[in-house]
């Protein structure tokens, strides 16, 4: 038990120290004059993101270059990983949903240096991704050998193999036609010969992670060949229908013509990939085959059906939140389905050059919008377990294919110990390279380490195109506390401009104060019960009063919040067996974050799961403004 708890103790210690640091060091305003903000060029801007409760409760840091933001996030297994978002997305996540003010210090650097910094961060991202793939390979190898050693079926980790029904001939005339064309174009025995060769190759157990990657690719290729050979069809539950806006979902004659072209496009992709020299052609083959069959089925049923793109790691929304927000989910479903309908319209109305070639990117986005819309609509109608996912992932429902026992249990058993040792070593390497440490490796330290690596060396006289020796020293020894880092950047790196982006609530309040009676607005907006903007629940803890604008009354407001949260904590202890400790968690966090408020420090600002309807008027108009003259931690 003890070894399991020690990471928690470490995290707890880190957390308490983090809170103390914030309490002790919270000071120093960074009020700056308004300016144009980070421009569209490549001049980098250091970002400081205000603290709030929940995630990144000690504040956060990032770097904006052009329209992209790079930042290090604390992720799974305690690893600090580099992420990249578009500036719009980043603002949406942190500025709007996270309800945190963002401050940007634009550095005065030549465009060439900006490009160099951007490339360095991108390269870090690519290297990190390659290492993660290696780790995934090591994990999959252990899973495979463990399953085979125990006589269990092979793991269901072949991407896109899960779209297919196992019954031979379930694909109907479209699958049969494809098989015939493959035979005509590549040879009658092409599939059988390739399958035989692959089975022979797969009978040799993978000796290392590197050979496992190749082994797994071959398994995937075999699954694709067998899907064609057995004329497999798609599983009903792996398809989502795409609405057609205001009209009936039926395909119009024009859409049918276009869909036939798209189907043919996917068929040609399948045939080309069968003969491709790509070592990893199994997954794209399975995906193109599934898309081809989805198009064929759409034509058969006269409605557009696409692959369900929800990835296996999609996160399930808190059932309580889901139950309490059916109406909101209904609105989101409408928005998402409308988006899918719009994309459908654009894709099928494409003319000229755009129509000649199908954009896979656009098709994938259509699949994602339809999947999200269908999931939200089902959740709004009462189906539990809404699963959500970010980005534009390729549909990749995993399956296991038809391979059963490629090599003996004994052979698997012999190699399992070695595979586990390899995985352990690789995990240790990851811990060493990406392990989080509050003081020495956090979102600030890693950001500046990468920044320092990106800079060209100084000449003998100590000068260069970017930063002098003193400034380089500052970059190398920057404070690990986000807001202090930002103050040091302003003082030492002499940014060309500093811009503040008020949080969603700040913008909303400013707008209302401008238009309505100050006192009435304040009375309505100072608490979580009557605020039209804020909705209690979501991921926030229990609190009653917003202390951000309370000024000298903050300790009093904090005491009220404490009195509000304590009984909830007590109630949470009683309800723990019935709600998995949810109420206790909210009550405890409410208590914890009320304490700094007693000492004039306000960390809690409230957050949003989705952009509230009341804020849509201010959401559009969110130009950069002067940084508010308040403490970053207040």
């Amino acid at each position, binding site marked *: 038990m003890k070894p399991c708890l020690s990471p*928690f103790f470490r995290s707890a210690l880190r957390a308490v120290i983090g809170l103390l640091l914030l309490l002790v060091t919270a000071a120093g305003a960074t009020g700056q004059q308004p300016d144009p903000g980070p421009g569209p060029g490549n001049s980098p801007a250091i970002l400081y993101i205000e603290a709030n409760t929940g995630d990144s409760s000690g504040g956060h840091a990032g770097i904006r270059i052009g329209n992209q933001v790079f930042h290090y996030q604390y992720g799974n297994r305690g690893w600090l990983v580099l992420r990249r978002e578009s500036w719009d997305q980043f603002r949406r996540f942190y500025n709007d*949903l996270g309800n945190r003010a963002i401050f940007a210090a634009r550095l005065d650097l030549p465009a060439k240096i900006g490009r160099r910094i*951007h490339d360095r961060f991108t390269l870090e991202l690519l290297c990190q991704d390659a290492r993660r793939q290696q780790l995934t390979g090591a994990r999959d190898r252990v899973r495979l050998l463990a399953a085979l050693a125990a006589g269990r079926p092979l793991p269901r980790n072949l991407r896109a193999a899960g779209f297919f029904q196992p019954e031979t001939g379930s694909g109907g005339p479209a699958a049969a036609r494809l098989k015939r064309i493959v035979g005509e174009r590549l040879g009658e025995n092409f599939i059988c010969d390739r399958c035989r060769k692959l089975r022979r190759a797969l009978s040799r157990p993978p000796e290392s992670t590197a050979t496992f990657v190749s082994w797994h690719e071959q398994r995937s290729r075999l699954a694709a060949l067998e899907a064609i050979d057995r004329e497999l069809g798609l599983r009903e539950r792996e398809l989502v229908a795409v609405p057609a806006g205001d009209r009936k979902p039926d395909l119009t004659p024009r859409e049918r013509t276009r869909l036939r072209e798209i189907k043919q496009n996917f068929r040609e992709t399948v045939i080309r990939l069968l003969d491709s020299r790509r070592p990893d052609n199994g997954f794209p083959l399975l995906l*193109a085959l599934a898309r081809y069959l989805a198009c064929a089925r759409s034509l058969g049923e006269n409605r557009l059906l696409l692959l369900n793109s929800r990835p296996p790691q999609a996160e399930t929304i808190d059932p309580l939140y889901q139950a309490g927000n059916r109406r909101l989910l209904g609105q989101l479903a409408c*928005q998402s389905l409308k*988006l899918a309908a719009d994309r459908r319209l654009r894709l099928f109305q494409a003319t000229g050059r755009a129509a000649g070639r199908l954009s896979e*990117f656009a098709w994938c986005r259509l699949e*994602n919008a339809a999947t999200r819309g269908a999931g939200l609509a089902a959740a709004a109608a009462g189906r539990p377990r809404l699963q*959500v996912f970010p980005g534009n992932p390729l549909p990749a429902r995993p399956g296991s294919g038809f391979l059963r026992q490629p090599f003996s249990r004994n052979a698997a058993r012999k190699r399992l110990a070695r595979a586990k040792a390899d995985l352990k070593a690789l995990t240790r390497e990851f811990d060493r390279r990406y392990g*989080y440490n509050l003081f020495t490796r956090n979102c600030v330290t890693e950001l500046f380490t990468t920044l320092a690596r990106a800079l060209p060396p100084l000449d003998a006289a100590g000068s260069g195109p970017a930063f002098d020796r003193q400034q380089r020293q500052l970059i190398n020894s920057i404070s690990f506390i986000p807001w202090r880092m930002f103050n040091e950047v302003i003082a030492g790196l002499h940014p060309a401009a500093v811009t503040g982006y008020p949080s969603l609530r700040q913008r909303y309040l400013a707008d209302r104060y401008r238009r309505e009676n100050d006192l009435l607005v304040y009375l309505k907006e100072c608490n979580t019960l009557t605020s039209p903007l804020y909705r209690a629940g979501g991921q926030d803890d229990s609190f009653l009063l917003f202390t951000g604008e309370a000024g000298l009354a903050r300790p009093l407001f904090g005491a009220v919040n404490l009195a509000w949260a304590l009984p909830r904590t007590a109630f949470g202890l009683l309800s723990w067996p019935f709600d998995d400790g949810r109420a206790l968690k909210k009550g405890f966090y409410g208590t914890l974050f009320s304490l700094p408020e007693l000492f004039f420090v306000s960390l809690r600002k409230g957050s949003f799961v989705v952009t509230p309807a009341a804020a849509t008027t201010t959401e559009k108009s969110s130009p950069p403004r002067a940084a508010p003259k308040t403490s970053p931690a207040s």
Partner: protein
Amino acid sequence: MKKFSLLLCLLAAFALAGCSFSYSSKALSESSSSPSKSSSGDDNKEEQEYRQTFANEVMLFTDNMLHTQADAAAFYRGLARIAERHGISDWETLDSTYVAIGRGLKKAGVDRARIDTLPLLSELLSPRPKMLKYIVKGYES
């Protein structure tokens, strides 16, 4: 008392996870988006951004691969990973992939005359020699 302290410590640790952001918030927000999200302008902007980012990543990756003396299989796998992150599985047929590879070759300092003999590219180009012109185009851009 000891157990209670442990509980408090655990809860505090959960309360103050550093530098993270909720995945579900992010994911759900992509479903919601702003009202303007459904406009074609937004989609076009995102597609343009994807093209630029994809091209830049392929260029940097190619440059890096040439410096690390990686084999062709590793190169293809890397290209596939980059493409997949942008919602693309069939990167082999995209002209932009080859233009970006050409730019990567130039960045890596490869001699123009050596391009069509590079072992890293031979398997990629042998089924589609026409794509060489896009590599050259990228190299000369």
